[in-house]
């Protein structure tokens, strides 16, 4: 069999359109996701259910109202935001590191006309997509437990996509420094965990020293928490506009930083 003749009718494959790779690389991830879909689906509902039960109801029972709202109402937007941020963060650290090193997924893609910038966008959008799915699961559990009753959950989820995107970009940025999996202990214990504790999440940040209050505003999570509390009508003292503007700024800067490191790793 002659290889060339057997392969095709049109002799040359036309050059793919620029940015076509964002779609195809994203679709590759989706195909892989289908293999683990049911497992994923189970835990993304189970986890928020546990959190709301243990922290929202359990601990919340001992907490008096915060600014006239129950502890559960105060905590729920934080859970939405932390989930939206941390799910893509984990995807972009552990999973993308595996794809970068052990599986050589990116190197394989780069043997084709797809460029680093396309891989970057595909991977960030993919991780953000996973974050949004988890966020929707939290929203459904919250609705089931009757924590909120407003349709403003929909714009909240849309805005949280941006938070997921930032989580992915931060995760990928960390990944570009990793030499092994142990490195991610620093990323999780040193960054993600403190961030999720102190971003006006489990308790009002106002109880903390001034320096911590100021410092935490230089990180993205608190702005997401404030925006969602605003949209759900739980706490409207922080300007929605400023929160959203801050999130866009974080998205821009983190994507830029992640890209400059990532593309150097891909093509040395």
């Amino acid at each position, binding site marked *: *069999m*002659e290889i060339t003749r*057997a392969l095709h009718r049109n002799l040359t*494959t036309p050059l793919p359109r620029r940015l076509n790779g964002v779609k*195809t690389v994203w679709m590759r991830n989706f195909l892989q996701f289908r293999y683990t879909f049911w497992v994923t689906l189970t835990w993304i509902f189970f986890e928020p259910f546990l959190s709301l039960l243990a922290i929202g109801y359990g601990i919340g029972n001992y907490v008096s109202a915060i600014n006239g709202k129950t502890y559960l109402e105060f905590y729920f937007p934080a859970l939405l935001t932390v989930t939206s941020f941390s799910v893509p963060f984990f995807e972009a650290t552990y999973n993308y590191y595996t794809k970068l090193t052990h599986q050589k997924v990116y190197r394989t893609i780069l043997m084709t006309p797809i460029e680093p910038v396309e891989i970057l966008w595909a991977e960030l959008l993919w991780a953000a997509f996973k974050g949004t799915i988890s966020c929707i699961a939290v929203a459904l559990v919250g609705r089931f437990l009757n924590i909120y009753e407003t349709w403003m959950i929909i714009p909240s989820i849309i805005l949280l996509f941006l938070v997921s995107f930032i989580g992915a970009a931060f995760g990928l940025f960390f990944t570009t420094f990793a030499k092994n999996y142990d490195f991610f202990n620093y990323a999780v214990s040193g960054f993600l965990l403190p961030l999720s504790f102190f971003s006006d999440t489990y308790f009002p940040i106002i109880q903390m020293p001034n320096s911590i209050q100021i410092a935490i505003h230089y990180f993205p999570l608190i702005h997401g928490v404030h925006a969602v509390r605003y949209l759900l009508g739980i706490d409207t003292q922080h300007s929605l506009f400023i929160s959203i503007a801050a999130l866009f700024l974080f998205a821009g800067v983190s994507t830029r930083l992640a890209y400059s490191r990532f593309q150097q790793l891909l093509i040395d």
Partner: protein
Amino acid sequence: MANISIEAKGLTKKFGDKMAVNGINFEVSRGECFGVLGPNGAGKSTTMRMMYGLTRIHHGELFVLGLNMKSQSREVKAKIGVVPQEDGLDVDFSVLDNLLVYSSYHAIPPEEAKERAQTLLRLVKLDDVAHSPVEHLSGGMKRRLTIARSLINNPDILFLDEPTTGLDPQARLFIWDILKRFKLEGKTIVLTTHYMEEAEQLCDRIAIMDKGTILTMGTPKALIEANVGLQVLEIGLKNEDIPYFSRKLTQENTDFIALENKIVIFLHEQNRPEKLLSTVPSQDIVIRPASLNDVFLRFAGHALKD
């Protein structure tokens, strides 16, 4: 341009302070099988990676299919196939899905991709396992799948980085057969290897690399004849005796190289084996045809496989 597939001038790559490829020049003609031979760390893979666009070029020029690798690598990648050292297959996917996903990177329409994938799986004899997960395949089967993957865009040039390293002889023969067929169609092949036999079997022309430079270049036959003659005499010796006999051979103007535990003498008309053995008495002697390994020895002063 028509008859030149690849043209490199002063090609240089540094990693930090370490010079990986040091200003090399070569040309590869269309339809030629060009082999790059050398030990680990010689700069073979770095040279390859520059040719298929996975490593940036520091200095020099590199044109592939008439396109500048520095500015048109996207266009080049659409027209080449690559078999890297590590397969980089998607382990979670089936054999067929691996090919289909890879075709999508090349933007080959799905129907067309399916047809091509099936054709190629027949070619590499993996059609029976098309729906098995890749992790169930043997090393040789994975390699064949990687070769099928590299052909999916019907490339003009095929780059193979140590394509048969770690494979059993049978798997190696099968891959050689596919490559020979690809070559028969007038396509260009560039491969690296540290198997002499592979280079002699497949390659029209060979560049021998060591420490980032090309030591010599030519057809396997010409390289052997010009540099080491037709036959080689190997004399096994105790390590501590080697300096003494080396001095004696030098005095007699013998063409030889001293290695660990042996002396390798390149036989020319003037030095007959009988005479040499009277100079260096040993029970441990072998006369064999000269090979590319000897060419490498001559230039690098050490064996190809460390």
